[in-house]
């Protein structure tokens, strides 16, 4: 593999590549994110943003209590988020645990949702604490069951211990398992990496190793997709594109529960990496409750008043 000509796959070149990255000033990054959060998105631009955000939702259920019934309901919602309004677009993907992939794929195909991909969380999600053999098999199972997108977690322990090459090699191996069958999203769990310097490092590491997407969080650890974290990742993606001409996607996940937060994410994309990234091929939002708030805001814009939550389907 060429790794975009940035590293040679060895420890020394990876270290020097990561150490050459410019630092992130915490205060400055947070101030920029806070400033962008003041953008006032109204009327036609709000309407556009809501529909765009719906197409970007990775509609997610990741519970021990997930059943085939729950997953099928989620799939139905994913294809037609509002059964009373056919102008509402389908979401970006359905995101489930590994063993639910075939249930989701089969049901989506059955109800005319062939265009909605299934994303599987993989590599011993959410902790990543398993052997490489297990992680590879985990990923292979998901692909065999019909997953078109793999959301893998990195080994945060290795990252924090400075064993970047181990993290890198894991991503490279999972990338190989995915081949051309599945898109690879790499989850950092930024709530455990803590510093923006680490987020920037992890971003460049994952992109060089072959990630198609970089993703903030599992949703199991707080804080998750905070605005400054997403800002730092978008800046990394923008810089990486300038270096390599490769467009890498970004997926914030966890904590984005309402329309206002989702629109703030779109503003971050728009003013950091630019409008090219404002589509589900390059930006996704991992969420469950968000979709219904988007639908309610959409109804409000059409009808001029807020509906009762009973007018949107619970799943």
């Amino acid at each position, binding site marked *: 593999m060429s790794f975009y000509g940035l590293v040679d796959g060895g420890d020394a070149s990876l270290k020097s590549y990561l150490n050459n990255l*410019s*630092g*992130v*000033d915490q*205060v*400055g*990054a947070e*101030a*920029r994110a806070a400033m962008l959060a*003041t*953008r*006032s*998105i*109204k*009327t*036609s*631009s*709000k309407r*556009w*943003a809501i529909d*765009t955000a719906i197409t970007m939702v990775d509609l997610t259920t990741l519970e021990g209590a997930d059943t085939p019934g729950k997953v099928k309901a989620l799939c139905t919602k994913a294809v037609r988020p509002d059964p009373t309004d056919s102008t509402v677009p389908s979401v970006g993907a359905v995101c489930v645990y590994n063993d639910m992939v075939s249930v989701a794929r089969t049901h989506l195909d059955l109800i005319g949702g062939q265009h909605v991909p299934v994303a599987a969380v993989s590599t011993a999600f959410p902790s990543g604490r398993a052997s490489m053999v297990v992680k590879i098999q985990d990923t292979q199972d998901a692909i065999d069951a019909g997953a078109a997108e793999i959301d893998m977690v990195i080994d945060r322990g290795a990252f924090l211990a400075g064993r970047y090459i181990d993290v890198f090699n894991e991503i490279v191996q999972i990338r190989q398992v995915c081949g051309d069958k599945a898109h690879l999203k790499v989850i950092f769990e930024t709530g455990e990496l803590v510093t923006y310097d680490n987020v920037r490092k992890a971003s460049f590491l994952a992109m060089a190793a072959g990630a198609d997407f970089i993703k903030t969080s599992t949703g199991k650890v707080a804080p998750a997709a905070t605005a400054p974290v997403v800002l730092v990742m978008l*800046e990394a993606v923008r810089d990486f594109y300038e270096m390599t001409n490769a467009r890498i996607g970004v997926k914030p996940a966890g904590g984005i529960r309402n329309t206002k937060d989702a629109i703030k994410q*779109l*503003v971050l994309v*728009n*003013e950091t990496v630019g*409008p090219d990234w*404002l*589509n589900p091929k390059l930006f996704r939002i991992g969420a469950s409750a968000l979709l219904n708030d988007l639908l309610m805001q959409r109804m409000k814009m059409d009808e001029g008043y807020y509906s009762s939550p009973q007018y949107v389907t619970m799943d």
Partner: protein
Amino acid sequence: MSFEYAPAPESRALVSIKPKYGHFIGGKFVAGGKHFPTINPATEEVLSQIALAGKAEVDAAVKAARKAYTTTWSKMSGKERGKYLYRIARIMQERAREFAVLETLDNGKPIRESRDTDIPLAAAHFFYHAGWADKLEYAGLGTSPKPLGVAGQIIPWNFPLLMLAWKVAPALATGNTVVLKPAESTPLTALLFAEVCQQAELPAGVVNILTGDGSTGALIVNHPGIDKIAFTGSTEVGKIIARAVASTNKSVTLELGGKAANIVFDDAPIDETVEGIINGIFFNQGHVCCAGSRLLLQENVAEEVLHKLKNRMEKIRVGDPMDKNTDVGAINSKEQLVKITELAAAGDAEGAERWSPPCNLPAKGFWFAPTIFTGVTQAHRIAREEIFGPVLSVLTFRTPQEGIEKANNTPFGLSAGIWSEKGSRTLWASQQLRAGVIWANTFNKFDPTSPFGGYKESGWGREGGRHGLSAYLKGVSHE
């Protein structure tokens, strides 16, 4: 597919602007004689007619201030004075949106800035100084510090209400009374502040506000009944004031011009540095005395920083100041626009390379696109003279020492910025820089607790913090 932000205008229904204003003397609004218009620089719409104070009005205001000083304010305990200041601060917060809208209409600055920066900071200055009023004996400024008397205060148009707060709050906290003149082009928030003084039931004559032009300012400066002059404005006028008071007993503080260096070392956090450069020069359309108007880039990162800076500048939203999404608003006056245009032309003529992002400037009003000049050297006029507009001069240096030398090679010394991830370098550089305010990995951050003021031709004395109090007290050195 594109994400165009629909207009999101702030409502102006909140403010009622009178067709004509008088002066605020002795706690009452007094009709003026001659009037001149104040306009909205974004539309050239005439907002109101403003009174021009002459000798009679200045005499009356000084007399009212003297009377209030002798009979009420200097005798009142610090604790009681503090109560009035707290009350003013709270009313300013309550009426913050009104102040913000009025400031934006009269000044041309974006509503986001007046709402999020100017007005909250102005209120913060009153809160901060309210806390000092009953603690002056413990401020390390002598055991029984005494006020100076009547202060004549002349403020600029770039931060109208905030500069008023910088002047009025410390003067009142220390027991002085004031005669204040807002700038000719931006008097409206000062006149609203006069209403706030009435609402707070501030004793008559403690604050007097006279509107007018330079001639009114000269009358205040030369008035024998005034004990102290506090001025913020150009170095040119500051020198005239210094000469005028040289043979008198008046105390003086001057906050004057600047040509601040924003120094970027090769270990800077680049993305946040770019934000800091933008904030340093395009905040408030560059109408900032401490603006980071000279960007000094270490040569080995110059190309990368410039590339990112230009990309970032393409995202700046220039236009209607009342739109909540506007980043850069209108130039404050036609006169200022002419000055900026003239200095930028000098940059072209002297061979610097001009660049601006594409932007559609409104047809009406006074506008200047955010601009950078590269290839600037110390010998260019645009590296020496204060432009006071959204124009950045970019210079480079090879070693940290050379960067510091270039930064200091100016008659000004108001502020400077240092961008580095290395603490030892930041501390070293800040010790070498001859500037009153030095920001590290940030720029244009203001706080009432922090003294502000310049070296060299950037001024005399400090405003804000404990140091700022001393400028309004007898027998305390002005550091």
